[in-house]
């Protein structure tokens, strides 16, 4: 089970030199239900990545509270897996050893861990490359491996920070399809940061749109499209148009 609850979260970055602060997030509140796929969408610099990093425990909040299944988040924890925008596989470990990393940290022996992660390697289709080093893989394969590495810890919620942002358009579409398949199979809660309207409309159950800095919630849009979705269906286009207009309003506000 993975129910994330964000309550009145604010984050102010203070400069060390003069003590002036930049408000990145202002009283952000929303809930993510168990098994839900939610996208955080907003203009660049709106604090969506900051919010995700706070949920991951890599960043602290200035005020407010975030809970996972009712328990406040205070630091990083394997219950909350994360996939980064940059390639984050450990280059000194082979693909399979990257994926077993989380299990090894729990004290599971390497041989046993390798057996356990076999199903995740299958899930992302990297059987052939499990003994390769990251530099031997394409960007798309590296992000697949990063997803498998996060899933191997069996997290309650998977946090994804523009994971397909650095990939070309075709690879991105393929990985979006695969991610949805994984999400349906594993039934994990996903919180996905993106700046792409298309991506959010195609993937999520709900889109949390944010205002430009300081980041507040602008509107939470329900995506009531049946799955599997068609990228270019009339209903999807209408929704895309609606969300684009929401973001455009933000652009003129600056």
């Amino acid at each position, binding site marked *: 089970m993975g129910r994330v609850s964000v309550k009145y979260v604010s984050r102010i970055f203070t400069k060390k030199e003069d003590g002036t602060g930049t408000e990145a997030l202002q009283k952000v509140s929303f809930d993510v239900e168990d098994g839900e796929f939610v996208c955080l969408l907003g203009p660049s610099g709106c604090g969506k990545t900051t919010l995700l990093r706070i949920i*991951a*425990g*890599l960043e602290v909040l200035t005020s407010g509270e975030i809970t996972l299944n009712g328990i406040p988040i205070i*630091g*990083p*924890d*394997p219950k*909350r*897996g*994360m996939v*980064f925008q*940059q390639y*984050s596989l*450990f*280059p*000194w*470990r082979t693909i399979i050893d990257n994926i077993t*990393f*989380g299990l090894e*940290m*729990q004290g599971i022996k390497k041989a046993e861990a390798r057996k356990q992660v076999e199903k995740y390697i299958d899930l992302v289709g990297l059987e052939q490359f499990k003994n390769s*080093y*990251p*530099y*031997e893989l394409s960007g798309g394969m590296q992000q697949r491996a990063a997803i498998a*590495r*996060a899933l191997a*810890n069996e997290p309650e919620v998977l*946090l994804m920070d523009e994971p397909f942002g650095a990939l070309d358009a075709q690879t991105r579409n393929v990985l979006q399809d695969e991610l949805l398949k994984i999400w349906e199979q594993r039934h994990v809660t996903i919180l996905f940061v993106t700046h792409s309207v298309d991506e959010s409309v195609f993937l999520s159950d709900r889109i949390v749109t944010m205002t430009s800095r300081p980041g507040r919630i602008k509107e939470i849009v329900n995506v009531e499209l049946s799955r599997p979705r068609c990228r270019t269906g009339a209903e999807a286009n209408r929704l895309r148009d609606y969300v684009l207009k929401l973001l455009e309003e933000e652009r003129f506000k600056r």
Partner: protein
Amino acid sequence: MKISFIKTIKENSIEALSLMVAVALWQLVAGIIVHNKFLLPSFYDVVTSFFVIIKSGLVTDILTSLLHFSIGIAAALIIGIPLGISMGWFKKVDRAVDPIIEILRPIPPLAWIPFGIVWFGLTHQAAGFVVFVGMIFPIVINTYTGFKNVSKVYVEAAKVLGCTRDIDLIRSIAIPSALPSIAAGIRIAMGVGWMCLVAAEMFGASNRGLGYQLWFNYYLHRMDFVLVYMLLLGFLGLFIDRLFRYYVDSKLLRWTAGTVV
């Protein structure tokens, strides 16, 4: 076996030719133009002296020098790597240790020879100590730099995967990530240490070893012997460096194969 040998000569024909020309030139200049065994021993002189030296106990001198080198490198690794790691990982250690290192570092390692002798006497440790002084700084500084350059995304990825204690992060993330830099530091240190070794043995911190023999033969004005020891030092240094590089590149740093072509 024979075929592969011939092939190697073919593949490295330019290198081999260059070496042969250099030796021939040397022999020509020394034998016909200079014609003075004291000023410039010829290639032939050096080869004959080499066999004399082998008979008179070359192996002991090589082993002695290697022992001095081993003492120095072992001490430098045991002290230098943990020091570099703690300076790179903990800011307070860095601030505490850095000024001391910055003051000691510019002192030429050879300036430590007198204290080496006073503290350790004419023992292997005295020569090893000078080698150690030469090696410690490149090791500390490269380990430190490697740790400073550990990418933040690896540390964060490790943290969200459940690796949160300093000791685990250092062992599982920072050390492997800094390994190329640490290995480069050790290589630089081995070069410096090798030079210090010769100087330490020459200036009295030992009564055996290749450096000692080099200086001893200089006193006897046997310059052909001096040249043999010089070349031996060069070849041995080259051999140690190649051995280290082979081991590190093929065993420890295979994962970097894609980054440097």
